[in-house]
């Protein structure tokens, strides 16, 4: 993190001039606010931030933050972000997206990003639905939620992002709530400051296709979980939680993957190898 001297920064210093296209009341607005607040607290120069997203309502966030953004293709943000971080270890690379983008189509990159444990921050705006495509069940949707595509529910258990992140090797695993601005900003700060792969799973209501999720604003508990680096304890907490706890479920100091390079060779050295 680079600290720059000078006046206090505000979330607005990290907002671009593109107006969000989200529905009025969408939880994603709060995530945008919490993220820009976290960046302001950290005072990271805008140009040192890489914000990489996929496709979805949530993934539109890269256009709304004043930074170097990449709005890529659906489900591949973690891979693109890993490439960026590989060549630019000096940057703070934040990857963001939705539950569909990250846990459905992007599931493989999620697994391998956790395992690789690069120093990336991954913000998942989980509304338990595909908002952008108008309300289909996502991996985190309850098995009995009725929709056009699954009129009697999918009948399939929910994806457990925290548990899977833990099993795959992520070194920082947190859950936040769009409704708890301050708590969420703090989680994001911790995640960015953590060295290694940090997952911040955020419960954020889709007011249009899942209006019942507005209840989350009340139901989610403010930071109830304190960090541990004991994997089994973390597993117990994750699998024991009703899903409404927030906080850092696991944080550990694990080897961080960052490709290194030197400049010790010249092109002539390589050419010489071919000579006969």
């Amino acid at each position, binding site marked *: 993190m680079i600290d720059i001297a000078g006046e206090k920064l505000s979330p607005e210093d990290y907002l*671009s001039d*593109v107006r969000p296209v989200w529905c009025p009341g969408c939880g994603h607005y709060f995530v945008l606010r919490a993220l820009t607040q976290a960046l302001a607290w950290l005072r990271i*120069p*805008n*140009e*040192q931030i*890489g*914000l*990489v997203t996929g496709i979805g309502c949530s993934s*539109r966030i*890269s*256009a709304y933050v*004043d*930074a*170097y*953004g*990449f*709005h*890529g*293709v659906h*489900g*591949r943000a973690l*891979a*693109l*972000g*890993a*490439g*960026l*971080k*590989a*060549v*630019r270890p*000096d*940057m703070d690379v934040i990857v963001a997206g939705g539950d569909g983008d990250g846990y459905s189509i992007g599931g*493989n*990159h999620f*697994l*391998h990003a956790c395992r690789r444990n690069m120093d990336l921050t991954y913000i998942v705006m989980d509304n338990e639905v595909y908002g952008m495509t108008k309300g289909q069940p996502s991996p985190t949707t309850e098995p009995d939620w009725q929709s056009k595509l699954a009129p009697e529910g999918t009948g399939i258990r929910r994806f457990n992002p925290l548990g899977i992140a833990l099993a795959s090797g992520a070194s920082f695993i947190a859950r936040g709530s769009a409704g708890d601005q301050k708590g969420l900003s703090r989680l994001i700060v911790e995640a960015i400051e953590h060295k290694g792969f940090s997952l911040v799973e955020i419960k954020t209501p889709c007011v249009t296709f899942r209006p019942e999720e507005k209840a989350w604003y009340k139901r989610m508990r403010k930071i109830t979980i304190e960090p541990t680096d004991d994997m089994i304890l973390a597993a117990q907490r994750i699998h024991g939680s009703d899903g409404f706890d927030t906080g850092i479920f696991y944080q550990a100091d694990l080897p961080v993957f960052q*490709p*290194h*390079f*030197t*400049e*010790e*060779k*010249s*092109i002539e050295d*390589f*050419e010489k190898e*071919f*000579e*006969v």
Partner: protein
Amino acid sequence: MQSHSIQDRSVSVSVSGAGGSGAVTAGLILLKSMANAGYYGYMTRFSGPQIRGGESAVVLNFSDSPVERSARSSDIHFALDWHGFERFSDEIPLNSQSCVIFDNSHDALPDSVASTGAKIIEVNLKDQADQLKGSRPNAFAVGIVASQLGLPLNAVLEALEQILEKKGEEIFRAASEAVRTGYGLLEKKAAPLEQWKPVSHTRWNISGNEACALGALRASVKFAAAYPITPASDIVEYLAPRLEKYGGNVMIAEDELAAINMAIGGSFGGKPSMTATSGPGFSLMIEAMGLAIASEVPVLVINVMRGGPSTGLPTKSEQTDLNQALFGMHGEAPHVVVAPLDIADCVVTTQWAAGLAEHLQTLVVLLSDQRLGQSRAIIDAVPSQTFDLKRKILPVQDGKGSYLRYAVSPDSISPMAIPGNAAGRYTADGLEHTVSGKPSSMASDHLQQLKKREAKVTQFDYGRMWAEASFQQESTEIVVLTWGSVYHNAKAAVSELYHEGSPIALLGLRLLMPLQTEAIQALCKGKKVIVVEQSYSGQLYHYLKGQGAIDASALTLAKPGPLVLGSDEIKAFIKEAAND
């Protein structure tokens, strides 16, 4: 043994044997020996369906001038045994001019070989090897072949040392003894090398895949991300240990979807980036290739083609991913497609391709193929050269400017901001966008950006790199148009016809997209045009017609893989066509 005219001072050797018999090592030693002796050579290898332990073979062609194609038939074939030899009947043609030497301590001479009329020499290498502790039959075979070619023993021993260097003194000693013994086993022949003129300048021993990798290094590619696949893996395996000592690195991706997106991320971060793959992996990269085009992020994708469709023929060569490279992406997706013509050209064309990606800020696809990529040749060192192709970068400035990432400029290329530059903050987007990068679905923005993306690749002046034209004359009546690994055999055919007096010329296309339609028309208009390619449906032929580069009267010789499209076959086709 065939007698060789001055124009065709070459000799061909093949070696075959069961897995573990060391046929491939024998080939590598012979190739290096020839190089040491001051000559040139070209080697391709083949194996049966077994993963390991199956039969394998090498086919070599040597000459005192650069050679990059296999001969019509083997002058000398050495069979370490006859295991699975029938699988190579297509790849190792034998005839009455051939000399077949075989180790008779295994199976007897197959009838199919006897019936070719080749001269047969039997040796018993088991006995020899039993007598010489630590020796293996393939080393004797190398000695025997060297003596029959008239290859100086020194050149062979030197090659042996280079290749066995890491295996230790013991092994080298036994092998060199075996080579010596082999060398003295049959009556030594001086022909055909007698008339050859050795050269003394620097040459390289290099495969097409290595050449592509070197080209990328020359172009200052600093980041590669890839997922292994035959026959492309060698490229990134070559780069992995080198790039990290050359200011860059290689990342192993979980799949090809990740690989290409990683490369796009690296390039967005400011480093020239690439990936390499083959058909199935290329198919998985399609979506993100469109992203590179739409978001205008430079990226080089090398596709070392193998036989298709689907998993197809993973270890065999074909030129059938052309359609996909040109038209595989959804939407209007203008980009650049290039293809090298031979191994040396892999260096040059890859360097050019990576430069074009940087300069034009778009996707460049380089199409190599298994034959080009996995063949190994002794070639003249490829002189270094510079293309003035750099990424146009937004100057670094403090404070936020009013940067328009996708501004329309005269050459349709807008300076790209590299993260870290305060003045250049923007969001790259695969959604259609305005000049500033803001998502837009307005017809006017779409049209503007479609035009911009197309104009920057079509209006660029590609100079003389777009093709190699040869034998052109005022009087040219026939033009043979080809590309990729077929080039050398086509060139041999055209050259022969030209020297026999045919008014014939050759055009080897290096730039396939954007097609240099007018330049092709200028060379082909009013001529008899023959398109030669290794595909079933004639992909290049239909493409050239569709773009209006050639007329409806053009002909095509299109043959699918995996067999090589030989120069005789090409010549015969042209002759017949010319007489029509």
